[in-house]
């Protein structure tokens, strides 16, 4: 029975494997997320503000998201940091980059921030470098979901093997377990 379930799970995962699109993005593996990130932190959204950005090819709207930094898992950050995302709304004009993460005040996220400058999205893997943190109202434990709200059972599910919606009923992993996995991976990479 277990073998059959394992096979079924494997088949489901294989069926879900591929390239994520929104914007079409190849989902980075957990290892790539950690190694490509300049900083990795847990933050709470303090402010969201859109403004115009003039470019040689026209004008664009950018959204500046300010985070109160709770924990830093990789890199160095102060108590507050700001990230810049292409797209947003100003008055009656909106610019949407399909798939771009949207942040709201008070949300808590784990953010894998790329070291590239002037990017469409500052996150590694576009939207994949955002993981949502939700607090279990009964136990008070912080748990982790992917950018689109799927339960993240373990770091193995990050990348092309993203969980299918049918597997969304699994219990999300603890934030503390993700922190341990990230720190271990970052430490392993440093030792190489």
């Amino acid at each position, binding site marked *: 029975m277990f073998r059959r379930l394992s096979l079924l799970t494997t088949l489901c995962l294989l069926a879900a494997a591929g*390239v994520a699109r929104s914007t079409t993005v190849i989902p980075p593996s957990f290892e790539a997320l950690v190694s490509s990130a300049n900083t990795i932190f847990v933050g709470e959204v303090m402010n969201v503000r859109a403004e115009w950005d003039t470019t040689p090819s026209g004008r664009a709207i950018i959204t500046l998201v300010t985070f109160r930094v709770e924990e830093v898992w990789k890199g160095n950050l102060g108590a507050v940091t700001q990230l810049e995302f*292409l797209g947003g709304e100003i008055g009656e004009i909106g610019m949407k*980059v399909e798939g771009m993460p949207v942040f709201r005040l008070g949300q808590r996220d784990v953010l894998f921030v790329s070291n590239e400058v002037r990017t469409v999205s500052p996150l590694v893997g576009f939207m994949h470098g955002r993981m949502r943190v939700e607090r279990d109202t009964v136990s008070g434990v912080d748990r982790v979901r992917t950018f689109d709200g799927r339960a993240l059972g373990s770091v193995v599910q990050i990348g092309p093997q993203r969980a299918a919606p049918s597997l969304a009923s699994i219990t999300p992993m603890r934030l503390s377990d993700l922190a341990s996995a990230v720190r271990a991976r970052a430490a392993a990479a440093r030792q190489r």
Partner: protein
Amino acid sequence: MIARRRTLCGALAALTLCITTMESPRGFSLLANKWPNGTVTMHLQLGSGSGTLIDGSTNWNQVATNALATWNTHVDLVKFSAANDSTVSRGDGTGTNNVFFDSALYGRAFGNNTLAIATSWYNTASNNKIEGDVVFNNTKSWNSYRGNLRSGTNDLYRVALHEFGHLLGLDHPDENGQNVSAQMNSIIGNLDALASDDIAGARSLYGAGVTSNISFPPRNEPNDFYTQLIGVYQNELRAAQVTTYVDPEGVVIWLTEYARYRVGLCDHSTAQTRVFSAIDNTGVYGVCALTPSGTISFPPRNEGLDFMNALQVKYRDGLRRGAGSSYVNSEGAVVWVLEYLRYRLNGCGHGDATTKVFMQIRGQGIQPVCR
């Protein structure tokens, strides 16, 4: 034969059900904004340096044009128009819709894992789109092919289908709690065409939902006409039997459906797509517009024959039908069934229409319609 009837009955049942309800359980997911009704001109600036691609396309713009045309066959209120090799300037927030390759999105880095990005501009009060651009990452390997994903090269066609779906206003069903087969799912896979869920989503935004204002004859009457036509071909014209994959009932019903879309002002490609969608049970559409009053005109013979040839292929390769034989060849079927329907839709009863067609076959010329 039983299996054939079962398939046809299944398709007819679905047809009847959908025409009755014109609603299906919603599976797709929609973005907040859409285009106002009309034409959306896409400036295709992908260049011509592709060489011949795996699917036979000879340049990138052709692939994008095909993807736009595919969406067009399923929508009524908005149509993409492809401006090939357009030289308009590329820019964001300019009001023009650009499709091109670049290593960055208007000066901003894609990120290592990004294949393509779609951006939309819209009015926040009306939620009407005012601009949509798609930029493909030219640092990635591209081709165009059908079938399963191939290692090492990305299929521009299915990525374009997906991104243009976003431009229309479709979101990812799988990121909104749904588990459906769809090109609009967030993960690219072996699906190389639009699925019924994609089509249903697009039609929920831009389907006219027009019910034909033309009454077609009850099915038994064109069936009876076709039976008589076979007799005329066999006994009077002494026609030799030809190979066919479409049984007589299929000939009549699908030619009638094709005619229904054509007199409902659908173009040839749209009408064919919609008939095949009914055959596949992936959706039944309204016609494209109301038929103007006056004499009802019918499609030219070459287009009807093109449809009939495609129907033969559909039955042979899609429905896996075996070869049969008929005294009426495809051209005869198209010409005379459409003539019969033309008489019927222009005021003639079954007997009169049948007589008038047979007079034509016997060399007595085109007969006047009955109104």
